[in-house]
């Protein structure tokens, strides 16, 4: 029997769903305090913290839900949660 190589479904990407609209508090990254340890990037449940050329974390606010986990766990207190202005 020939085995098909096609997909049985061709779903769209969850990226269509911009969860940033859920946010009540917004993480603000204070680069001067950041040691580029990478902790925030490892733990963000949204996987929405990237990295710029200097190795500093850059959140994607299109998807950040503002859960505050990165700010809570940052060993250098380099992230502050601020009330979101809408």
């Amino acid at each position, binding site marked *: 029997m020939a085995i098909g190589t096609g997909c049985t479904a061709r779903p769209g990407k969850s990226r269509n769903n911009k*969860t940033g609209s859920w946010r009540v508090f917004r993480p603000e990254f204070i680069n001067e305090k950041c040691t580029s340890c990478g902790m925030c990037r490892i733990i963000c449940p949204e996987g929405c913290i990237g990295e710029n050329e200097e190795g500093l974390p850059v959140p994607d606010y299109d998807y950040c839900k503002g859960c505050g986990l990165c700010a*809570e766990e940052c060993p250098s207190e380099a992230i502050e949660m601020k009330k979101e202005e809408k």
Partner: protein
Amino acid sequence: MNDEAACVLFDSGHRACGGCAAAMAARLILDAAGKDTIVVSSTGCMEVFSTPYPETAWGVPWIHSLFENNSAVASGVVASLKKQGRKEKVIALGGDGATFDIGMLCLSGAFERGHDFTYICYDNEAYMNTGIQRSGATPYDASTTTSPAGSCSFGNSRPKKDLPMILAAHGAPYVATASIAYPPDFKKKVEKAVNTPGPCYIQVHAPCCTGWGFEGEKTVAIGKLAIETGLWVNYEMENGVVTKVKKVVRKPVDDYLVGQKRFRHLFKPKRNDAEIAKIQALADRNAVKFGIDITLKK
């Protein structure tokens, strides 16, 4: 922004609660296992929040099974890959309800038959997606909607089932427990499991802010406290023998319990000494069984 590194295999835009450990776990699993992975996933929060029709957060082939047959579907995928001479890794994912209770029959069968796949249970200690019903993984005295604390009950009346030991007894070559509070350790264990031939099992502690009653920012802190109090032990077993254990300077169980609404009844209107002593005894038993205590020199 460096999309490549941040999230390609498990993508943003999923609908988990803010601070969800299961979402963290999904990303860490794929980071560790890599793109040549096929995932079989039973119903539950992780499946629901990652695949709202017609979209998906999974960047690898992903199959939704029933609760009952997750491991049977994974077994079939493994057999088919073998016949085709393909080398992809197969991972079956299930919540604790799916794993400890409803999928147990097929899980036991697949492990006994010895299929080459990795089963990962993300353990949030109740059926969360349907509104916090107790499972075989719910800890002693936790209040859930089917084990509510009240005038005649202190919450869940049974201790957590020891599933890692049960699966090790099937002859599994590699069994490990992990926690999302220690991501590099968890990733190392996933890598080891997928690269070990035969059926391997990982149970990852995944604190659930919504079901346990704490703020989403505390997910990692709560996970750490479970380990620091000895109520959760991170260990590895190879061929039935415990080969590695995370040791701690133990804290009293109160430190873990007090921050969660599911244990609130143990502290209000006043501290329930008798019940908390029983939970402390569970932690003490873990400490002896696994030798987790670090004794500080005075």
